[in-house]
């Protein structure tokens, strides 16, 4: 693969009930990413937006962010899915040799609708939808299958919540930062057994944008470029009933491909910091395993060891992760933006000192049907 770098990032603060329109959120991060890269819109020749018509309550919602994303008068396309997938598409277009600099935007304003109804509507209307499945109940089924198979405990899941909510206190963009104990998580209200109130992410409003550039353009950029060293995505079966819910086959496949491209043989040793899509606390443990940080079933032991907390061998989610801010479709791109800040040494109170190689991970679909894995570095291949 030719060299491509990320040269600019921008995020809003993530919160519930932001009073800007979704286009105003997109404008905010487009401007921030351009300023971060030291570019003007004239330097951008390609735009990839990310929208979901149900979430936005509007058909062909991508058209409504044309001006805000800088699409006016430019080559603009849209992805429906997590922002890591929009970035993947932006990367492919950058590699086509036709474009110099690509801006990728994504937004979430789910507070304007009813998130639980919207998640219910993701299911097959003939079966699971009319039985009332949603993100929480389906994830509870996945958590039950996984925990029962490997003996992972509710306390081990709670440790993820304690760690990430504490990390969020160092992230000015985070929605929910908390100083809590395992006991607090265990005693929080049961939503869908074994998932409790403090095991789940908040649905947040917000937006994120990044700028991808060719090697030539990246060398002229204002900030130190962050190079894309490996990337892959993979999709599992649509219906949960057709998947083995005790591990993520799709994540294992995506991670292996991305690592091969990046020349990573031992991800736990070679990656300095990881930002993963922990929509629920148990998910972070499953994703450790899918990403090869430990063997299948050992995620609980890994969080227990303290190796994934700040100061550990491989800090996971220094930003507080998705548990601390969950703007749907934005959250994966926010993982990439956070990885970029880490690799530039600009992550402030959540900085992992001397980070050279970072991993960012995004998911789309029910219980992580699709996984996208990015390996980024401040060192060239």
């Amino acid at each position, binding site marked *: 693969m030719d060299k491509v770098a990320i040269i600019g990032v921008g995020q809003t603060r993530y919160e519930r009930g932001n009073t800007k329109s979704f286009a105003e959120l997109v404008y905010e991060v487009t401007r921030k990413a351009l300023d971060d890269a030291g570019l003007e819109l004239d330097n951008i020749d390609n735009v990839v937006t990310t929208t979901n018509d149900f979430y936005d309550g509007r058909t062909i919602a991508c058209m409504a962010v044309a001006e805000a994303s800088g699409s006016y008068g430019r080559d603009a396309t849209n992805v429906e899915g997590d922002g890591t997938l929009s970035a993947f598409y932006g990367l492919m277009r950058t590699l086509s040799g036709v474009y110099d600099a690509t801006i990728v935007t994504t937004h979430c304003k789910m507070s304007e609708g009813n998130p639980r109804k919207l998640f219910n509507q993701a299911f097959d*209307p003939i*079966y699971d939808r009319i039985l009332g499945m949603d993100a929480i109940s389906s994830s509870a089924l996945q958590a039950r*299958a996984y925990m029962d198979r490997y003996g992972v405990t509710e306390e081990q899941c709670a440790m993820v919540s304690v760690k990430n909510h504490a990390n969020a206190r160092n992230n000015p963009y985070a929605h929910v930062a908390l100083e809590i104990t395992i006991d607090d998580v265990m005693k929080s209200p049961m939503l869908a057994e074994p998932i409790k109130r403090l095991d789940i992410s908040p649905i947040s409003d917000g937006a994120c944008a990044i700028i991808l550039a060719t090697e030539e353009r990246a060398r002229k950029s204002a900030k130190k470029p962050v190079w894309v060293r490996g990337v892959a995505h993979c999709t599992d079966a649509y219906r949960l009933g057709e998947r083995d819910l005790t591990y993520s086959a799709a994540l294992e496949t995506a991670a292996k491909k991305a690592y091969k491209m990046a020349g990573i043989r031992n991800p736990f040793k070679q990656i300095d910091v990881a930002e993963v899509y922990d929509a629920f606390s148990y998910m972070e443990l499953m994703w450790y395993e899918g990403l090869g940080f430990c063997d299948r079933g050992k995620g609980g032991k890994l969080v227990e060891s303290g190796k994934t907390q700040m100061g550990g061998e491989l800090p996971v989610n220094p930003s507080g992760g998705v548990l601390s801010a969950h703007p749907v479709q934005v959250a994966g791109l926010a993982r990439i933006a956070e990885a970029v800040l880490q690799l530039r040494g600009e992550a402030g109170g959540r900085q992992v000192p001397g980070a050279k190689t970072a991993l960012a991970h995004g998911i789309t679909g029910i219980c992580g049907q699709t996984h996208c894995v990015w390996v980024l570095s401040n060192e060239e291949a």
Partner: protein
Amino acid sequence: MNEKEGSDRELLEITSGEAEHVYYWHCGHYVSKFLLGLRDKKTILGIKCSRCGRVYVPPREVCGRCFATMNEWVDLGTEGTIYAFTVVKLPYIDPNTGKPIKVPRTDIYVKLEGADTCLMHWLDETDEKKISVGAKVRAVFKEHRRGTIHDIECFTQI
């Protein structure tokens, strides 16, 4: 007119209103046959991939793993085991009626005997201490059936 000082800084909201947007989904040949099995024979039909041998329930035209058309129907009966369960305690809106649903309610994935995939449905037990992965269950059918997944009232432990 009530004009108070600073009212030009008020932030407004507009609602989408009460209009409904109703869909009519075609079930197709495979799903129709499955639903007719529930309605007319009180049985659960799956479909087998002749290439990899997997039995899918609910049935579908294409095996995703082989990208092959499936034609071999299998009568799976009404019994199986619990693959995963959750007792839902957070009240929410019933998508069928728009009215609040009664909680607690137990969602399960059932692996029917002879099937390789799981069917999602409800269990008539809401005490999680009395439910376990691997427990045997049987489908309970409604008396008046209309050709929907709700023709199965729920599953019950046997």
